[in-house]
Structure formats: C-alpha cells, structure tokens
C-alpha cells in the first residue's frame, strides 16, 4: 500500500479581486497503512483537502504524491485505481435509479477488468452484504446498507488509498458502529491507507493514529491519538476544540 504526501497544497475559489483563498498552504504526510484524521469545524477546509487529492477540484497549487508519484502525472485510469473516495451522505451519493449491480459494474467496465461477476460478489462479501443485494435499488436499502454499497464501490477497484469524507455522520450511532468496525477490519486485513475527515473526535480517536486539526483552511497542529485523552495539544484552537469535545463526551 502507498503513502500520501501533500506539500504546499493551496486553492482559491473565485476570480480576480473576489478570489477567496480557502486553503492557503497545507502540508502533511500519511504513512502507508496509516489512518490519518482531519478534524475541524464546518468550513475549515477539511473536505476540500480530500477533493483536491482526488482531483475533484483541479486548479490547486502544490503537489500531492501517492506512493511517490504525483497524482497530476497519473492518468485517470491509474489515479482511480490508486485513490477512491467515500462520501458523507449515502442518500445523495448513490444514483437513485441504478441498481447495486450497475453501481458496481460501471467501474469494472471502465477499467476493463476481468471476472466481473466474481469481483462484484467479492466486493459485497467484503462489506458484509448478501449477494442477492446486487439487484436492489438504493431506496430498498437502509442508510447503513447504502454506505456499505458506497464502500464496496470504492473497494472494487482495489485502490491503495481511501478518502473518507465524514463516512458515518449521516448515520445513527448503532449503524455508525457497524461501519466503523467494517472500516477498521478492512484496514487490518488489507492494509489500506485512510484519510478520514470527521467533526467527531470520538470517531477520530477510535479510527486514527494521528490527526490534523484544521481551522480556516490551515492545519494548526498535527497530533497523536494519545494527545486526545489528556488534551496535550499546544495550539490554543486545538486545545479548545478537544476540550469542547471531551466536555461534550463526558459532561455533567
């Protein structure tokens, strides 16, 4: 599996005088097989970082290297087989009129892979869904099942890096537990590299080895998981965020 290196990543939206520098300058590295968290308030730019890495946004500055190779130099085919993304809302990220089979078949066709039926069945098994679900449509699935399909879609191309954009924040706590278990189990078995965006520090604590605290597009501090429990962050904002989360977790 591959490491991720982000150096001086920056992006501005808008033109001329109205341009807003939403990510001034972001750098961080993720070891191979690591789960790296990005946390911060809404609007702090954490999802934008993922969108830049996956080239859903293209006009950024700086370099992003996955396994030593720049994502810009990869062709679209190679890039999609290296990095895949799971989005926040499983109600919005699956086409309502495409069956699970269509959803999983499309990447196999585009990438011209063999053993398609076998791969689709394997992908469903990996995310803990029965094979019969291939013929279901999104409205016939619960939120947790939809998110499993979205994860299966990301895994079917056997990528090295998974970008997880708030993968459980639209789900109930009980379903969140299932999806988090699935994600950590997959990482343990296959050694994927994860970059997980979340606003929930309890989730980050459960999943990640290290995490970066973001504010207004900048990384204010990169911390170890251990820093959460006793709040050993040094930056004021990181301390504030962690103590608010701890207060919320254990309050009263």
């Amino acid at each position, binding site marked *: 599996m591959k490491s991720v290196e982000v150096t001086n990543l920056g992006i501005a939206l808008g033109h001329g005088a109205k341009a807003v520098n939403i990510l001034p300058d972001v750098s961080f590295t993720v070891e191979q097989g690591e789960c790296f968290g990005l946390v911060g308030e809404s609007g702090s730019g954490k999802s934008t970082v993922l969108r830049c890495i996956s080239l859903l946004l293209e006009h950024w500055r700086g370099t992003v290297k996955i396994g030593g190779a720049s994502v810009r130099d990869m062709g679209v085919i190679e890039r999609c087989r290296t990095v895949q993304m799971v989005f926040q809302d499983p109600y919005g990220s699956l086409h309502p009129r495409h069956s699970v089979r269509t959803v999983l078949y499309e990447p196999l066709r585009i990438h011209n892979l063999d053993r398609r039926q076998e791969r689709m069945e394997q992908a469903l098994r990996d995310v803990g869904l029965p094979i019969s679900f291939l013929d279901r449509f999104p409205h016939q699935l619960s939120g947790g099942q939809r998110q499993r399909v979205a994860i299966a879609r990301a895994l079917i191309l056997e990528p090295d890096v998974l970008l997880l954009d708030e993968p459980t924040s639209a789900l109930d706590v009980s379903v969140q537990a299932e999806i988090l278990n699935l994600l950590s189990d997959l990482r343990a078995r296959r050694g994927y590299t994860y970059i997980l965006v979340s606003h929930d520090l*309890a989730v980050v604590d459960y999943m990640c080895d290290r995490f970066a605290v973001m504010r207004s597009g900048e990384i204010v501090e990169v911390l170890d998981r251990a820093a959460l429990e006793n709040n050993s962050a040094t930056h004021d904002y990181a301390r504030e965020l962690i103590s608010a989360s701890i207060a919320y977790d254990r309050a009263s």
Partner: protein
Amino acid sequence: MVLPHDTILDVGKLSVSYRSDTGYVDAVRNISFSLGREKLGIVGESGSGKSTVGRALLRLLPTARITADRLDFQGQPLLELSEKQMLDIRGRRMSMILQDPKFSLNPIRRVGDQVAEAYLIHFKCSKAEARAKAMSMLEAVQIRDPQRVYDLYPHEVSGGMGQRIMIAMMLLTDPDVVIADEPTSALDVTVRLQVLGILDDLVSQRGIGLIMISHDLNLVRNFCDRVLIMYAGQVVESLKASEMESARHPYTQGLLAAQPRIGGSRAPLSVLDRKPEWEIPLEGAA
C-alpha cells in the same frame, strides 16, 4: 412512575399512524408520559417515531391519524380543540425549535423581523414594541450586538447564531412548553455546548417544560432530567438521565455501548443485534 407536581402536559396512550397506499402505518404506538417544569429527553434512531411525537403534540400532522386516551395541555384536551384554538397554542403556549436554522428561517426576511413577528401575531402591540421585545430577547440569547444582527438576513449569520435566533423566536412569547427537535445536530461541537447552555438557562429561569428530541444519547443524558427511549414507535424504557448507566432494556444498553468514546478502547464496537422482543416495553416504561 410518580407524576411530577404541576404537570403541564399529560399524554396517555398516544398513537400516530401515517396514511399509505395500503392503509395506515403505525409510526407511534401507545406512548404515555407526562411533562412538568423539567427537561425531558426523547431518544431513538431515525424512524423510531420521536419527531412524530413532537409534531403530534402540536397537531402539525394534518394527514396522519392521531389517537390518544389523554392528550391534555394544562387541562385542555388538545385533540378536541378546533384548528382556530390550536393557533392560539402553537407558537404562543407551546413552541418548537427545529433542527437546522438554514432551512427553518425565512431566507428573504430580516431575522429580527422574524423574531418580532412571533410577538406581533400573539399580542396586541405596536411594531415598535415588538421590535423592542425582539431586541431584548436577542440579547437574552447572548447575541452581542442585537441592533446589528436584527437587520441581517439568515444567510449572513452563522449556524450557531441562527439557532440562537430560533431560540429567541420560540421563547419570546413565553410559552409553557418548548419542543426542541434536534436543536444542535447541525452545529459544530464548539458552539453546540454554548447553544445548549443558553437554552438551559432560559428554560430553567422561566420554568418552561422542555421536550428535547435527539438521536444523541450523550447529549440527552447530560442535558435532560429524564429520558424516554423510543424503539419502533414505542417508549421501551424511561429513566432518570443520571441513572442511564443502569439502563435495563437491551436496546438502551446497545446504544450506549455502540458509542465510541474519547480515550476508549479500540476493540470492535458492539453493534445492535436487533430482536423482535425488543419491541416489548419494560414494565413501567410506558
């Protein structure tokens, strides 16, 4: 359970069913509770019927079938009131704080006018009086510069401020019951505690009965006095927030265990293994 003195709202065997193609589907089945001047939490997963309860209390479900043995609000049977009488209750004596200020404030009206409107509708007064009332209420929800904020539009305020404006609007008429439906789930954790703190202060100062509807067990146990746990349209367990750890219903226990905690173990989180008998409420719950 011993009824709290001074009961404001008394609900007995409330059921709500929604109309569907094939007949009526039960969303809420036989739930009973009473509310005094306290903070009552209703927790459950999506689809458990918790929001339906809140809406049924305000009779905001025109197409649903609502039945109850008792649905008394300060002695008045809510189900027997005419729509006209309900208008005097909604927003005046019982009001509702909704989840996301982005969607529940009118985008093309100044926020201050929207707050003042709540007062103008229910009280005989001049516009200037309503404006002054709204202004002082905005101050009460700790908006630092109410003169400036009054003239802003919803897109110009942050989520936390928007939710404080909603709280101001709902408390301005001095209601007896406030139903808060996921009041902080759209907010960041740093502003969440602040908004909850403001709500808590105002509710306790004014002796309002608060029903807090949420999927977040953590929030409810820290914020409320009592908690009802809903599963599949029923209240399966009812307990004091401080005694949450000693919950007896397997569903409640499952929800507590599924929550990752900061500094907690990294062993696989326990997941719910749903069983049909969970739909049977614990004795004394309903």
